[in-house]
């Protein structure tokens, strides 16, 4: 007679078709061409990257496309030390919120080429892209961000984006 059953595997599995829509498709198409494409709100003039197609503050469509550069600022970050199922990056690694120059919305990116002890808010970084042949409509086109060596950004320049 074996031991009583105390645990049960109850995996959750959802298959779905993701359709990013017009605005996000522009962002993804930009990534396919090695560019960051955002959208500007006609009212508050904030630039969203990636954009969802409308301004969350003003509720109006963002129809002006803006191409942003490769550089930005780390607004905040997390050093990942905990292994988990499906992890594809060697720990410890840094996951940062990147505010591209000229953007008013940060997004998450992997930060490399810096010891985890040296990561800090305000660090200036630039995108390192994968080989052009591998560019696709995905953030995986960006290999990671790395320090540019510029002086750190002043806190006031990114304090609104934490």
């Amino acid at each position, binding site marked *: 007679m074996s031991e009583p059953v105390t*645990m049960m595997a109850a995996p959750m599995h959802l298959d*779905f078709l*993701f359709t990013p829509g*017009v605005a996000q498709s522009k962002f993804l*198409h930009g990534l396919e061409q090695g560019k960051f*494409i955002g959208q500007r709100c006609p009212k508050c003039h904030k630039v969203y990257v990636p954009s969802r197609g409308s301004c969350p503050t003003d509720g109006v469509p963002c129809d002006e496309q803006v191409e942003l550069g490769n550089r930005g600022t780390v607004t905040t970050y997390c050093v990942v030390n905990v292994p988990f199922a499906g992890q594809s990056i060697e720990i410890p690694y840094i996951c940062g919120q990147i505010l591209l120059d000229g953007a008013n919305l940060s997004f998450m990116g992997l930060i490399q080429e810096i010891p985890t002890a040296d990561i800090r808010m305000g660090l200036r970084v630039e995108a390192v892209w994968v080989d052009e042949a591998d560019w696709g*409509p995905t953030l995986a086109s960006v290999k990671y961000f790395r320090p540019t060596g510029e002086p750190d950004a002043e806190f006031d320049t990114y304090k609104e984006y934490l």
Partner: protein
Amino acid sequence: MADEEVHYSADHVLEYPYVRSVGPVIGAFLTGLRDGKVVGIKGTGGKVIVPPTEYDPETGEETTDIVDVGPEGTVTSWSWVPKPLRKHPLQTPFAWVLVKFDGADTSFLHVLPAADPSAVSTGMRVRPEFIAEADRVGHVNDIRHFVAVGGAV
């Protein structure tokens, strides 16, 4: 950038490998399935609930008295599935059946494969067919499906 409209879509999968603890009552039920039998629990007034619940559904009183039921039972209701979906437990036509095991007062949901819905009826006598003992883990799928008692379906 050229003024081109590009629309994307992609297949995504979201998956969590959860394992949950089952507690003493559901645990007894799953242990029973692993060992090739079905158990229920006595509720207030002696009603036998299958699958067992930790509390009596009518009075809310705690239940503790595990009892064996079946293995045979009676179909109390059913629904025909002519074209199974990918996630259904069977990939050939089947009926979802509610089975009231002998000795039970509630019904248990499982599947009954059949060539044709005319082979399924309320009141028909059925029994569970378990998968091989070595493959049983303490899960409702330890019962492969139900079969008609004493006759091919």
